Structures are given as structure tokens and as C-alpha cells.
């Protein structure tokens, strides 16, 4: 059997475009991702096809509209090649997919929310609406890059603040995000955050957040937004009043988690205990006197991305502690081990992070740094919390430690 030659434009239209709204990590149909016709079973043909697709994806990384989607698909490439190069795995997948249309999961998902707004035809938009589209495009790309779909919602989600935030809160957060971002390596994510900060400053801090929200709502309803540029905003319109927010004074609960340092995979020594250690709240130990910097012994692994080990080797967070904020939210703090950039807090029984539902949350080290911890709403006393650490390999693929290796379970 033969297959038509690889067509980059067709791949772009049929695969990359739908993937602007659906993460490739969740796509089971790797025939579709690899652009390999499902009926082909010739090893050489499949290998050649995958090579062409991969080469095309590398080129797409340099092109304006598809760069981030192409990078996301490339992160999935080991999985795509792994299944398609294995006749048994290929056969099993073929049987599982049955008669479903190629890429049905992605194509059927359709465009949703802000991502759809970013992709919608923009003909005839006024400058303000075009500006919102630029924001939506950047938000969508950042959400795909970080694998945090909720970021695509709006600039408030990007800043991690409620829509009722005051100008002061918005300004402080923009400054803080900017400060953290400037520590990052110069990469696409840093550029996107810089761009979104600029929009946040003009549309929210110096502009009119209520008008921004109203225009987004109008966009979503399919009505062209009447938002004027920030400079032209009505100067006499009353500012949006956010609810009075008292200065947060954290209530210290039973916090000390003594076993955390012995958790499996922790940098300072591995415990042979199986399963997550159960930890009871105690009072937070006052921080000890600062020690002078010391040189790590040779046995310690370097913390660079390139040295990241697979999921099982991801070290657990240490010095895990919890407090209750005045508003009732639970605030978790911990020390980030080398290489770990994201942490997933599972509320309830340990589950697969990819399938966990709210209020389980993923926290990046950036978000954590901005909020001064991991803030969870709606966690009632007695609930088990499992903290899973995750890190990315050299290709950027995120791997989670398994629940069996979670560092701690909190039973308030």
C-alpha cells in the first residue's frame, strides 16, 4: 500500500489548526498526530512519513502562527513514534479507535472560549477589539505553552487575580510578575509574559477593567465590543469598587510536617518507606538562623534541566507546611527541590494529575512565588491532600511523580 506524499499545508489545516484549542498530550489517535493513514502497516512507509512530519514540525517552530502548537506536538513525538513503530501497539490502537474519524477527539472538541476568539476572523475589527484579539492570541499561546488552559480566559486569569481586584492590587501584581519574569531565561514564554504585562498595564492598571470585562463578554456573545482605547476611556465613569480586602493575617494552624525531609526522592536523603507518609499538623517551627552557603557534596545531582530524571526520580517537595488565610483559604508552602518547576496538589484521594478535577490544582514555581504559596479554596478540615512534584525533561515534556511517591498526605 502506498500513501500520498506528505503535504505540509494539509498537515497544518487538518492537524495543527484543531490543536490550537486541544492539547496534543490528550490525543490518543497518534496516527492522526503523526499524519500516518491508519490503514498503512508498512514499517518503512510509516518511518518515512514520521520523519517528514517531524521535519515539518521543526520548521513550523520558526513560523509565526503555528510555532507553539508545533512545539507541543514535538513534545509528544516520542509517544507518537513509540506507538507507531511498534506493530502490536499500532494494532491495539487501531482496534481501539475503530471507525472513529481521524483525530475525532481534537476536531470534535471545536474551538472554545478565548482561544476561539483568538482564531475567529477579525475582519472589520476596531482597534480596541483587535487589541483584545492580540491579547487572546498571546493568552492562548501561553496557556498551551504552560499547559494551563485556564490562563486563556482573560488577563485576570493570567495575573491570577479576581476580576474585582483594585487598581492597587493589579499594579502590585503586574510589578511582581514582571520582576519574576525578568529572572527567567530569554525564551518564548518570557516574551509572551512581557507582552501580556504590557497589555495588563494599559487595559487594567491604567485602563478600565470593567470596560475590558464588558468588552470580553460582548465578544463572547458575538457582538463587536465598544471598548475604546485606554486613553479614551470615560474619565468620569466611576471606578470599579472591589470589595474591601483586609490585610491578610495568616492564621497558623498545626503546620510542621516532620517527615517531609525523609520523603522518598527528597534531595537530602531517600526514605525506604513505601507510600506517602501521613503528616499531622503541628505548629510551624521558627525558621532557624541563616546558614552560610555551603558547597554540595559530589553525590548531589546537578539541578539543570538536562539532568532531569524521569518522573519516578522527581524529588518530593520538602518542608511542607499549611496555614489558613483569614478568608478561609488553605495556603500550602514548601521548599522546591532542584529541577521541580510544577507541583500538583490533589484534594482527596491520590489520582492521576491529568485527570484530577477541581479543587485540585497545579502550581508553577512562578505562580507559587507570586502568591507566597499554593492557595486552595474550599478545602475543609479532614480532607486528604497529596502533593505531587513534576518537572520537565529536556524536550519540555512534563512528568509527574506517581501518587505512590507523593511526599506527604495531610489529614487536618
Amino acid at each position, binding site marked *: 500500500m502506498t500513501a500520498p506524499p506528505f503535504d505540509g*499545508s494539509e498537515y*497544518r489545516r487538518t492537524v495543527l489548526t484543531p490543536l490550537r484549542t486541544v492539547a496534543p498530550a490528550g490525543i490518543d489517535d497518534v496516527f492522526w498526530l503523526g499524519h500516518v493513514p491508519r490503514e498503512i502497516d508498512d514499517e518503512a512507509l510509516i518511518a518515512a512519513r514520521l*520523519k517528514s512530519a*517531524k*521535519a*515539518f514540525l*521543526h*520548521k513550523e*517552530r*520558526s*513560523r*509565526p*502562527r503555528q510555532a507553539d502548537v508545533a512545539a507541543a506536538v514535538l513534545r509528544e513525538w516520542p509517544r507518537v513514534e513509540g506507538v507507531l513503530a511498534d506493530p502490536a501497539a499500532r494494532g491495539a490502537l487501531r482496534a481501539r479507535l475503530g471507525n472513529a474519524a481521524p483525530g475525532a477527539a481534537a476536531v470534535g472538541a471545536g474551538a472554545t472560549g478565548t482561544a476561539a476568539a483568538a482564531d475567529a*476572523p*477579525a*475582519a*472589520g475589527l476596531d*482597534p480596541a477589539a*483587535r487589541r483584545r484579539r*492580540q491579547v487572546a492570541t498571546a493568552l492562548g499561546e501561553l496557556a498551551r505553552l504552560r499547559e494551563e488552559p485556564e490562563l486563556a480566559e482573560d488577563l485576570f486569569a493570567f495575573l491570577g487575580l479576581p476580576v474585582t481586584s483594585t487598581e492597587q492590587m493589579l499594579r502590585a501584581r503586574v510589578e511582581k510578575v514582571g*520582576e519574576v*519574569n*525578568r*529572572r*527567567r*531565561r*530569554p*525564551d518564548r514564554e*518570557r*516574551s509572551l509574559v*512581557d*507582552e501580556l504585562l*504590557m*497589555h495588563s498595564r*494599559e487595559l487594567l492598571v491604567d485602563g478600565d477593567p470593567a470596560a475590558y470585562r464588558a468588552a470580553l463578554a460582548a465578544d463572547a456573545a458575538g457582538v463587536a465590543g465598544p471598548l475604546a482605547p485606554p486613553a479614551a476611556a470615560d474619565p468620569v465613569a466611576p471606578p470599579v469598587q472591589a470589595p474591601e480586602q483586609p490585610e491578610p493575617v495568616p492564621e497558623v494552624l498545626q503546620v510542621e510536617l516532620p517527615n517531609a525531609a525523609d520523603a522518598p526522592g527528597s*534531595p*537530602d536523603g531517600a526514605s525506604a518507606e513505601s507510600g506517602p507518609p501521613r503528616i499531622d499538623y503541628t505548629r510551624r517551627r521558627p525558621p532557624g538562623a*541563616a*546558614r*552560610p*552557603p*555551603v*558547597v*554540595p*557534596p*559530589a*553525590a*548531589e545531582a*546537578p*539541578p*539543570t*534541566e*538536562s539532568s532531569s530524571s524521569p518522573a519516578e526520580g522527581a524529588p518530593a517537595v520538602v518542608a511542607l507546611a499549611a496555614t489558613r488565610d483569614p478568608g478561609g483559604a488553605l495556603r500550602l508552602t514548601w*521548599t*522546591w527541590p*532542584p*529541577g521541580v518547576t510544577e507541583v500538583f496538589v490533589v484534594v482527596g484521594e491520590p489520582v492521576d494529575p491529568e485527570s484530577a478535577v477541581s479543587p485540585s490544582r497545579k502550581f508553577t*514555581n512562578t505562580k507559587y512565588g507570586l502568591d507566597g504559596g499554593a492557595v486552595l479554596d474550599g478545602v475543609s478540615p479532614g480532607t486528604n491532600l497529596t502533593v505531587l512534584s513534576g518537572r520537565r525533561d*529536556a*524536550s519540555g515534556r512534563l512528568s509527574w511523580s506517581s501518587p505512590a511517591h507523593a511526599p506527604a498526605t495531610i489529614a487536618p
Partner: protein
Amino acid sequence: MSRSGSVLGIDLGTTYSCIAQVDRYGRPEVISNMDGDATTPSVVHFQGDDAVVGKLAKRSSRIDPDHVAQLVKRQMGDPDWRFQAGGRDWSAPGVSSLILGSLARDAERATGLPVKDVVITVPAYFGNEERKATKLAGELAGLNVIDLINEPTAAAYAYGFGLAAAAEGTGADETVLVYDLGGGTFDITIIELRGNDIRVVATDGDHELGGANWDAELAALLSERFLMAVPSGSDPFDDVYSEADLMTQAEELKASLSQRERADALVTSGTERASVTLTREEFEIVTRPLLERTIELTRRALASARELGSPRIDRCLLVGGSSKMPAVARRLTEEFGFAPQLADPDLAVCKGAALYGHKKLLERLVSDATAKGVDLRQALADAAGEHGMTSDAVKQVVDKRVVNVVSRGFGVLAKQDDVLTTVFLVHRNDPVPIEVDEVFYTMVDDQTHVRVQVVEQGGAEESPDPADATVLVRGEISDLPPGYPEGTELRVRMSMGGDGILTVTAHHAGRKQPLTMTVDTTSALSGEELAAEAEAVSLLKKKL
């Protein structure tokens, strides 16, 4: 050096590159390529076993986009990036080497002289990996890369040269802000010109921000207008050929709108076409976020310069092809009150590199002669005679000093409060040469090994998180004798010379000799890949 007087300067740009030499009157001169153009598109078209560089390659992007490599400079330092063409994978240094080789051959054809020794320019904000990749590209092209020079410094060098020539002396003392908006990168640098010294005070930038971003926004606008005009048409971005054509149209339209208030472009998609008219105002509205990012970076660089004792800017120089957009000068005036001056924006960097190469050459001639016992006055006279200059002119060039700053901090990884942390010894904007000592302590009694990992700051600000840094050098003191308690000192010394070479020594009382560091080159190309790439470049060079 292969021949005195043959150190050429190369501006290896994201979108365009050029090569220059210093003429027999000591003036910088750009060497035109085979098409008679001063600049060559940094584009490579692979055709089977063959490759074409420059204008023809750029044209080919519209008919064979899958085999055309562009904007490769943005991938320098990324060890994973590969461009597949001609049955093999090309790294960013490999593709760049073809561009450098093409420039060198054009210069050889134009001058009739072999080109071997070169100075190549890099964005000030390039880190160690990107600089290494650039040097590697030169070596793969068969060139002897004498030095790399930061692009804004090169521009200031060229500007300072012109100033000195006009004043028939050393020129006036000035603090200059160089706003360098190139095809793919943005650098902002504050430089003091004081007598014979060119001192970089502060630098900042973004190497994901350049003219190509303006082109992309313009292309999106053109696509929208096309779909308005042809509702039944398909989005040009959906088709690789239409997209390539659209990007070319966008670049040309940007150039037109820099000179006119309104311009047209012919947009095609499949069999459909439409003429689209855009105004400069529309263009400036959609690209304003990009411009504002450069303004923010300028603001930060000015703040750094103020902190470092340079509060006043006497002159604002605009460098880089994209700085010709009228909105750039207007916005800089609005925000900072500058009167920006376009300073030979397309060629200043290349000319500065040639002047700097010439300086290195004369320095070498004079220092070699004096090392052999020749009197300095005689050495200057000999060098002057060889280059058709006066002794005073040679002395002036040799005396000129370029004082650079560190564009990113350097430090070591150490445990602080039980958390592995980056401790910075050398900080961004520290002037070079620099030498810094810091004491660290062992963690346990009788510690047998000590590992020292030297890192480079990843972002614009220092971060204690090791994940934000890049490991440059790894070293280890092993088999330490017992008897040294926890808290035994480890003295780390970090020094960087004007040549940008970082040296790190670490001394533990249990060892007489300090630690000998080994440079980690794993993030460049592996030995095997390097050999394969060198062979492929060599094969292509014979055909080009």
C-alpha cells in the same frame, strides 16, 4: 593571522548580514555581494546536495518554503534545533556557517584576497551558549574568529570613529544610548565615549523581539484584510506557500510604510488574490505592543545606567534596519525627550566590527614587535608603514580601549538553608575585567568531595533558582583527606578578562593545588555531530 590587514568584520544578522573591511585610508568599507548589494539576506535554500545563500534563497521561500532556512540566529544556542534538508539535519551553527561562508567568498571575489581572520558581531544580550554557537559557525565556515563584538558596541565604535574623524582628534565626550532594533533581536545599550575609551555602562534586550515580529503582525493584518475582500477565500496562513508569499509581502510593506503614509500589497491564497491597502497608522496600531516592549526595556536600561552613575544621555543612536520605522524615533522622543539619530542603521554594526578587527590587527603587530625587543616608536612606525597610516594614527587606534560589561551574571551553585541556590559572584553590568572572591563552606565533617558548578544567569534579573541558570563549567575536588570539619572554607575565585573568558578556581585547605575546572561543552554539538556537520559544510563550500 593570515595576512596583516585582512581582518574583516561580519555582521551576522537575523534577517540580513554583511561584511566590511578597513580600506587603505583606515576607513571602514562595506564589501558588496555578487548582486551588488551591501547586505545579504541571512537565508539558505537547500536544493538536494546543494545550497544557495542570499537573495535567490529568499526568493525561493515563495516556491519551496520547506527547504528554506530563515531567522536561524534566533535558534543559536538551542542544542535541540535542527533543520532537515538534503537528507540531513542542520544545526543553527551549521546553517549560519553557510551564510558566513557565502559572505567570505563574496568578499574574496570582490577584493581578490583570501578571507580568513574575522570579527563577528553578536547581540549584547547573547549568553555564553549563543556566543559559542556563533564562534562555531565561523569555524565551520573555515574562518579564524579572532573575536566576537557586541553589536551596539560595534555601532558605537563606528560612531565614535566618525566623530573622531570629523573632529580630527579623539572626538567629544558623550554618553550615548544605542537603540538597536534588528531583524530578530533588540538590544539597548548605554555607552560612554570618553577620549579614547568606549565604556559600556549598561545593557539590556530581548532576543525574541525584532523586525520579524513586526512583519508577523503585519502579515496577520494583511490576512484579515484579504479575507474581508475575498470572503470565500482561505486564510493564507493555512497554506505554506501562501504564507511564505504573505511574509515577503509584509516585509516589503513595512519598508514602504516607513517612507509613506499608505501602501499596497497583493495578497494571494490558492487561486484567489486581492490588493490590500494599509496605512501607516493602522500598522502602528497593531504593532504598538511590540514597540512598547522596547520602550520598557529602554526604561530599565536607563534606570540601570542611573544607578551606575550615568544619569544623562547626550545622544540617542538608532541602529538596525527596523529602527527606521518612524514610530520608533517618535516614541523615544515622546517618552524620554531624546532627539534620536539614525546612525547608518543597516551598516554601522558591520563597519564597527571591521574597525575593531583592524584595531586587533594593529595591536597584534605592535605587541609582537615590542615582544621581540623592537622599540615601541619603531613598532608603531613599522605598522604604520605597512598599512599606509601615520604612526600617530596607529597609536590612536591601538590606544582606543573598549571597556565592556558583563551582560549576564555568573555564580556557583551552593546550598543555602538546605536549598540549592545560585550564589552570584559576578553581576550583570559589572565592568570587565573583573575578579571576585567568595568563601563557601563544606557541609559535613570529613567531606571527601566538593563539587563546584559555575552557572550563567538565564534571565535579565538574578534568580536564586538554579533552574533559571545555565551550567557552564563543572569541576570537582575529590579524595579530600579526613580531618576537616563541617564548615571548612572553600575559597572560590571568579575572574573574567576583556576577552570574555571566565576563569574559576576553587581552593580547599586539604589540597595544595586549586581545583582545575573543566568546561562543559555538552550543550553545543557532540564531537560526532560536529564532524558530520563540518564535512557537510565542506562539501557544500566546494559547490558554492
